[in-house]
Each structure stands twice: as C-alpha cells, then as structure tokens.
C-alpha cells in the first residue's frame, strides 16, 4: 500500500518534476506538494510526490538513534 521512497528532486517544471536516485531519473507529478523545489527530497509513490521530507525532523530522528547507540555503548 505504501511503497514510496525519498528521492532527490533535481528539477521542477509546472506540475512535473524529475527525481534522481543514483543516476536513475524519473519524471513525476508534483502537484500534491506545492512549493517543491530542486534539492528537496520528495516521498514518491507511483509517480507522484506525496510529501516533502522534513529535513529537520529527519535529523531529529537520526539524533534519537545516536542517543540510543550511545546508551547501548555505555
């Protein structure tokens, strides 16, 4: 139901954008994420961006993991 991955937007043009993963590029619809710009990470599902990744929240999640790792280490 949910297969979608964060992919980097490399360009946007009207209702469409291009995402890149390791050199593989695909054209997607970005109408569901107004304000999307190159450099954003879009969560892409079946050819449509459904969300833009919140980088601040991503860093927070990573920090949580690091804290757990430190706790495990000590």
């Amino acid at each position, binding site marked *: 139901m949910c297969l979608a991955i964060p992919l980097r937007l490399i360009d946007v043009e009207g209702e469409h954008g291009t995402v890149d993963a*390791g050199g*593989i590029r695909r054209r997607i619809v970005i109408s569901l994420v107004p304000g999307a710009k190159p450099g954003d990470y879009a969560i*892409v599902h079946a050819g449509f961006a459904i969300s833009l990744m919140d980088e601040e929240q991503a860093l927070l999640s990573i920090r949580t993991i690091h804290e757990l790792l430190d706790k495990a280490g000590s």
Partner: protein
Amino acid sequence: MDRIDLSIGSGGKSMHEFIAGVVLRHLGNARLDGLGDAALLDLPRHAAFTTDSFVVKPLFFPGGDIGTLCVAGTVNDLVVSGARPLFLSLGLILEEGLPMADLERILASMRRTADAAGVTVVTGDTKVVRKGEADGIYVNTAGIGEAVGRPETPRPGDILIVTGSPGDHGVAIMVARREFEFEGDVRSDCAALTRLLPLWESGDVRWMRDITRGGLATVACEMASQAGCTAVLREADVPFSPPVRGVAEILGIEPLYLPSEGKALIVAPSASAGRVLEFLRTKAACPDAAAIGTVETRDREVDAILRTQSGGHRILEPLTGELLPRIC
C-alpha cells in the same frame, strides 16, 4: 543492399558476397577467410567446450549490444570453467529486413570483444528467416578453450568474492526497454572476463561462475546446491552500484536477482582470499571486487542465507518467475 533479404541465406552468389563483403570485413582472420566448411585446429590436450545462444531484446543497450554479449557470454563460460578461450564458432539467424547498418554495428562489437578477449571466430553459418520469424537477429556461439586451471568443489570455510557491482546489465536493459519510464546514465557491465585467468594459473581460486540470469542470489544458490554446502551472503558487503540501488529503491526490485554479463562469483580458500582480492583490484581492473560471504557446512535444505544490512537473517532462494516492480 541496406537491409538483409532472403537471398543472403540462400547459399548462392548473394550469400557469398555478403559473407565476403560484410562478415569477413569485420571478423576476418587467417582461419575464417578461407571459408571452409570446417576449421582445422590443433587443440590442446585438455580442452573446454561450451555453447550459448543469444536472444537479447533490445539488440542495442547502453554499454553493449548482442554482438558484445554473444562473444563475452561464451568467453566467460570458458574462463569461469578454468579455460583460456581460443576459438569461437558463430551461428547467425537474421530476420529479413534487419538493417545492414545494425548488423555491421553488431559485427564490429563482436570483433572488438573478441580481440579484447584474445579469441578468433574460426567458423560460422548464416541463415535468414522471413520477416517476423526472428527478433532482428538471434546468435549462437560455441567456444573452445585450453584448460589452465581445475575448478574444485567449494567447501566450508571458503570465501565468496564478487568481482564488482552485480546487476548493472539488468538495469541497462530496463532503461533500454523504456518499460518503466525512467532514464539513467547506466551502462551494462557486459564484458569478457579473460583478465581473471591468472587466478586459475596461480591456483588461488577454487571455483567461479559468471553472474547472469537470476543474479548473484541465483548463482550463489546454484553453487551451494551443487557443492552440498550453504552459502552465507552479507547484504551490507555487496558492492551494488548507485544506479542499481536506485532502481531497487524506485521499483522495489530485489537487486540480488538482477543479471550481470561481466561479473563473476569467485570461491577462494580463506588462505588465498586476500591475494585474490588484491589481484582483482590492482591487476584485473576490478576496483570494486569485494568479499561478500562464506561457504558453510550444509544446513538442511538451505542453499543460501542472507545476513541483512540490519543484522537479521533470511533464506535466499533462486529466482522464480519474473521480476515485476511493486505497485500499490
């Protein structure tokens, strides 16, 4: 003529002109030029012999074409069996209407690949079928090589090594087929593996197989099944290239099943595994060669186990059915 027509396969003047004018222009050599019914060869005492047929679609893809494949594929079967490739036969089945320019491109690729691998085409045959009865061109090649090493059965404790990023050919084909509507600067890894031959001569390897249909997982399972062992692969150590990872992400395809056409799975005793990796990386143009697992004692009916990136384990099976992308 700018397209293949039926007269070329007829055995008459048209055919002769075609062979002499087109085929020999690309593939000609002392043995082939004579166009005898058979090539007369002095064969080595211990020889290896193999054959393969090629029906790839599309004929041309980034990084190669059916010409590259038909030489590399047979050459590689010899190499991984411990033999230095010497001679190839070439059987062409051409579809009426195939553009001559396409055929010449393919023949040129064959020549380039054969030269790089040090083999010559010494005998061949051409047939032409009516439009619609072949997909452009089908090719069969058979190859003879000289045994320079003796493969042995892998055994517990041996190390599994891959010569580079698996799956590149599969992604190149997907891009060329344009089925999935993505683009990419990705090239097939289609290539001859003759540069691995010194590994046989040094005695540092036990067993090899080239990674083709079914990908790395299938080859590992076949090895384990034939050897009566269990292969344990470490997902984190497999050196997938960024495009293969990208396609795996975007389409949800398991990259362990994507085919290559110029990568090998090598089994080496643990004592020489380090030397093998060193050789691959510095002398055999395999900078991404990596140790990716071990051969273990047979675990009941399990051919292969994958230790996942996250530390879990799951059983790895050979590819069954098609690879279709996941869609909600």
